[in-house]
C-alpha cells in the first residue's frame, strides 16, 4: 500500500474513533440546570418548604408520589387500599435498594416516621400533617397498615412529603450529616454527590431506580437567583436548562432557534382578599380621606362589585404577557375538588357601579391595596392595573407595594384592609386552601392559619366535613360545593393562576410539575 493510502486510512480510523468517542460522550452527557432556589438543607425532615422538596425528590422517594398535576401515584408503595375509615393498607415495592445497598422494607418506614418529630430545629410541618397517624402496624416486611386516630383524608397526600430514609442511619443522625452528604441516602433516581454552598449541587444517576433510568448520568444544579443572569446563562450555553423564566423574556426566548420553552399551569393562584371581620378595615376611607362609619367590605354587594370591576383576561394578556390563566376559583383546573361549573367572574363595570350604589356608595370610597413587589410574577404591575380598574367604578385605590420580607410580617399582624396573596395549593387538591385560607382562624385546630380577615360558619362546617370524609368522590363533591360558596361570598377573590415556565436548549424536552418543582428526571433528551 502506498504511503498516501496508509495515511488516509489512519486518518479515517482516527475520525471514526473520535466520532464514536464523541457519540459515547454525547450519550453520557451531563445536564446542567440553572436554578433560582438553593435548598436550605438536604435533611428531608428539617423543613417542608416547597423549594427544598424538589431537591429531596431527586435523592429520596416517598410511599405515595405526586405526579405532574400533583395527584397521588404509587411510589415506594406499589398500591394501597382503605381498610376502614381510620386504616390504610400499603403494599410496599419489593427489590428496592438504597444508594448504600441496603434493602428497603417496612422497618425503614417505621424508622422514618419515628425520626420525623424528633429532628432538632425542624419546622415540624410534615410531622404536623402526619400527626393523625396513631400507629404503624407492620403486617409483613412488605405490608404496612397506617392507623389514624380519627378519619383523615389528608394522610395520603401528606405521605407524599414523607421521604423514606434507611433505618441504618440510626437515631443520632443530624441535619448536618444530610447536608454534608454523609447521610443523604435514599432510594431516589439520583445519588447525592456534592454540594458547594451558593454555587452548585451535583447528583449522579441511580441506575437501579425502580421508576426507570433518567436520561442523564450526571446532573449539576447551579444556583443563579438573579433572573436576568439565569436567562443569559442559558443563552450563552453555560447551562442546559433554567427554571422560573421571567414571563417578559418568553417572547424573546421563543424566537431564539437554540432554545425551547415549556409551560404548564402552576398550582399557585393569586387572589385579592378583603377584610370582612373588623368594623374598621385599615386603609379604607371615604373619598376625602375621612373614616367611614362602617366597613364597606362587610356588604357582599361591595365585594361583588369589586370582583366584577376587575378584567382578569386583560391582566393576563397585557400585564402578564399571556403567561397566566384567569382564575375561576382558588385552584387551577384538574385539581381534586375543582368545581367545573364555576366561570371566570364577568367583567362588568356597569354592574359594579349599580351594586355599589345599592350598597350605599354611589360616589364610591377610597382604599389601600397591600401588595408585594418581589414575590409573584409582575405583582406591582397587576396591583396597579387593579387599582385603575377599580377607579373606573369609583373606588379610589392607593397601591402600597413592598418587598415580601416586609409584607408578610405585616400581613400576619393583619395590617391590611385589602391585599394580594398567592396560594401554592401544593397538596394538589382543595384541602390546603380551604383549611388555611378560607376556614375561620382556629389556632388550636390548625385551621385558618393564613386567614385574619374572614369567617363563615357554614363554610367552616362544610370544610370540616370534607376533611373527615375518606371516600374520595364524596370528599371532592364537598370541596366543590365549598368552592362555589367561596365565590358567591366574594371575600376572597381569585385573580389568576401563574404558569410554570422552564426553558431548555434545543434537543431537550421537559415536563413541568404543577408545584413548580424543578426535576432532573423530568428532562428527556429528544430522540431523533
Amino acid at each position, binding site marked *: 500500500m502506498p504511503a498516501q493510502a496508509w495515511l488516509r486510512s489512519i486518518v479515517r480510523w482516527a475520525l471514526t474513533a473520535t466520532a464514536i468517542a464523541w457519540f459515547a460522550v454525547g450519550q453520557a452527557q451531563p445536564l446542567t440546570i*440553572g436554578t433560582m432556589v*438553593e435548598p*436550605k*438543607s438536604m435533611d428531608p425532615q*428539617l*423543613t*417542608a*418548604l*416547597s423549594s427544598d422538596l424538589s431537591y429531596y425528590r431527586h435523592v429520596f422517594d416517598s410511599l405515595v408520589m405526586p405526579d405532574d398535576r400533583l395527584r397521588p401515584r404509587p411510589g415506594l408503595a406499589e398500591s394501597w387500599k382503605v381498610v376502614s375509615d381510620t386504616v390504610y393498607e400499603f403494599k410496599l415495592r419489593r427489590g428496592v435498594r438504597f444508594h448504600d445497598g441496603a434493602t428497603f422494607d417496612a422497618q425503614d418506614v417505621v424508622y422514618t416516621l419515628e425520626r420525623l418529630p424528633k429532628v*432538632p*430545629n425542624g*419546622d*415540624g*410541618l410534615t410531622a*404536623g400533617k402526619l400527626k393523625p397517624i396513631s400507629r404503624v402496624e407492620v403486617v409483613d416486611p412488605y405490608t404496612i397498615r397506617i392507623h389514624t386516630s380519627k378519619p383523615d383524608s389528608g394522610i395520603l397526600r401528606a405521605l407524599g412529603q414523607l421521604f423514606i430514609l434507611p433505618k441504618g442511619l440510626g437515631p443520632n443522625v443530624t*441535619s*448536618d450529616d444530610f*447536608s454534608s452528604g454523609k447521610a443523604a441516602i435514599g432510594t431516589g433516581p439520583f445519588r447525592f454527590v456534592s454540594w*458547594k*454552598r*451558593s*454555587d*452548585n449541587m451535583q447528583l449522579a444517576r441511580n441506575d437501579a431506580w425502580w421508576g426507570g433510568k433518567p436520561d442523564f448520568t450526571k446532573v449539576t444544579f*447551579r*444556583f*443563579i*437567583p*438573579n433572573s*436576568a*443572569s439565569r436567562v*443569559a*446563562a442559558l*443563552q*450563552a*450555553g*453555560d447551562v442546559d436548562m433554567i427554571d422560573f423564566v421571567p414571563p417578559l423574556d418568553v417572547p424573546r426566548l421563543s424566537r431564539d432557534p437554540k432554545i425551547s420553552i415549556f409551560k404548564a399551569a402552576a398550582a399557585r393562584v393569586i387572589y385579592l382578599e378583603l377584610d370582612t371581620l373588623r368594623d374598621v378595615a385599615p386603609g379604607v376611607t371615604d373619598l376625602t380621606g375621612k373614616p367611614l362609619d362602617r366597613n364597606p367590605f362587610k356588604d357582599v354587594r361591595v365585594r361583588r362589585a369589586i370582583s366584577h370591576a376587575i378584567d382578569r383576561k386583560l391582566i393576563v394578556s397585557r400585564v402578564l404577557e399571556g403567561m397566566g390563566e384567569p382564575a375561576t376559583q382558588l385552584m387551577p383546573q384538574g385539581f381534586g375538588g375543582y368545581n367545573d361549573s364555576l366561570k371566570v367572574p364577568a367583567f362588568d363595570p356597569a354592574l359594579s357601579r349599580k351594586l355599589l350604589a345599592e350598597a350605599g356608595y354611589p360616589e364610591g370610597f377610597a382604599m389601600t391595596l397591600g401588595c408585594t413587589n418581589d414575590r409573584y410574577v409582575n405583582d406591582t404591575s397587576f396591583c396597579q392595573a387593579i387599582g385603575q380598574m377599580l377607579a373606573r367604578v369609583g373606588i379610589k385605590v392607593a397601591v402600597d407595594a413592598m*418587598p*415580601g*420580607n*416586609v409584607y*408578610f*410580617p*405585616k*400581613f*400576619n*399582624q393583619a395590617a391590611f384592609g385589602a391585599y394580594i396573596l398567592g*396560594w*401554592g395549593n*401544593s397538596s394538589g387538591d382543595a384541602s*390546603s386552601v380551604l*383549611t*388555611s385560607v378560607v376556614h375561620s382562624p382556629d*389556632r*388550636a*385546630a*390548625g*385551621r385558618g*392559619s*393564613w386567614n385574619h380577615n374572614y369567617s363563615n360558619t357554614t363554610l367552616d362546617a362544610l370544610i370540616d366535613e370534607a376533611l373527615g370524609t375518606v371516600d374520595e368522590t364524596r370528599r371532592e363533591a364537598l370541596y366543590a360545593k365549598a368552592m362555589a360558596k367561596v365565590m358567591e361570598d366574594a371575600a376572597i377573590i381569585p385573580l389568576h393562576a401563574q404558569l410554570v415556565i422552564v426553558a431548555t436548549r434545543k434537543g431537550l424536552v421537559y415536563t413541568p410539575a404543577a408545584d413548580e418543582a424543578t426535576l432532573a428526571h423530568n428532562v428527556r433528551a429528544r430522540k431523533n
Partner: protein
Amino acid sequence: MVKLIVGRILQGFGVLAAVSLIAFVGIYAIGDPTSLLIDPQSTQHEVEQVRRNLGLDQPLWRQYVLFVRSLAAGDFGRSFATHEPAMRMILERLPATLELALAAITLAIVVGIPAGLAAGTHPGSRLDRIVMTVSILGFSLPTFWVGLMLILVFAVNLGWLPSFGRGEVGSWLGIHSSLFTLDGLRHILLPALNLALFPMALVARLTRSGAREALQLDFVRFARAKGVAEHRVVFVHILKYIAVPIVTMIGMQLGLLVAFAIVTESVFSWPGTGKLLIESIGRLDRPVVVAYLLVIVSIFVVLNLLTDLVYLVLDPRVRFAAASQSE
C-alpha cells in the same frame, strides 16, 4: 505608634458594638421572620414552636443580651433559615469574595494608574480627554446594568467567556483560590472587570490630578532641569509623591469592594458573601446579617490600620509626627 494601634483597635470594638446593635434593632423593626421561614400551611402552634426554637419569643433586649453573651464565647449564633452556624456560612464564602475584590482592585490599579499618569502628564491632550470621559462612565453607569451588558456581549453574543459563577478552584502554597486555574481566571474576568470599573475610574482621576499638581512643583522642575529621564521623573518622582492619597483610597476601596460586591455577585452568581447577604436580608435571617456586618466592619478596621501603617512608610512627615507623638 503602639498607642495609635491600640487606639484604633479600641475604636474598632466600639464600632462593632454599635453596628451589631443597629442591625439587631433594624431587622427587629422590619418584622418577625417566622412568617418567611416556614410554610404558610403551618398551624399557630407550630409557628409558636419555631419562634421559641429561634428565641424570637423573648423581648428584644433579652435577645440582644443573649447574643452578646454567646458572642463572648465566640458563638455568632445559627442561621434562622439553615440552622448552620452563621460565622461558618460567611467564612465558607469569604474566600470567593476576597479573591473577586483582589482581582478587581488589581485591575483597577494596573489600568487606572498608568491611565491617570498618562492623562496627567499630558493635560489637554486627546488621551487626557478620553481618560476623563471614560472615567465619568465608570462612575456613573450602574454596576447592575454594566454587568448584564458584559454578560450579553462577552458571554451571549461573542461566547468568549462564561456568563456566571466561579471556576475551578486550584491550590498554591496551601491557599485555595480560583485565581490559580485557567478556568477560574476565565470565570473571574467579567465580574472582576465589572467590580473594578468604579475604583478604576477613581484611581485614574486621582492619579491624574495628583500628577498635574506635581508637574508644577519644584522638585519635578529641578529633576527635569538636572536632565533626569522623563520616564524616571514620571514613574519615580511623581508617582512617589502622589502615592499617599492613592494608597489611602485603594485601601478604603478594597474594603468597599468586599462589602459592596453584592450587586456584582448577584448578577454573576458569584458564590460569595454578598450573594449570601442579599438572600439573608430577603428572609430576615438576623444572625447571618449581623455576623456579616461584624466581619465587614472588622475588615474595615484592619484596612484602616494597615493604610495608616503604609502611610508611615511612604510619607516621612507622618512618620516623624507619629514618632514625636509617642515620645
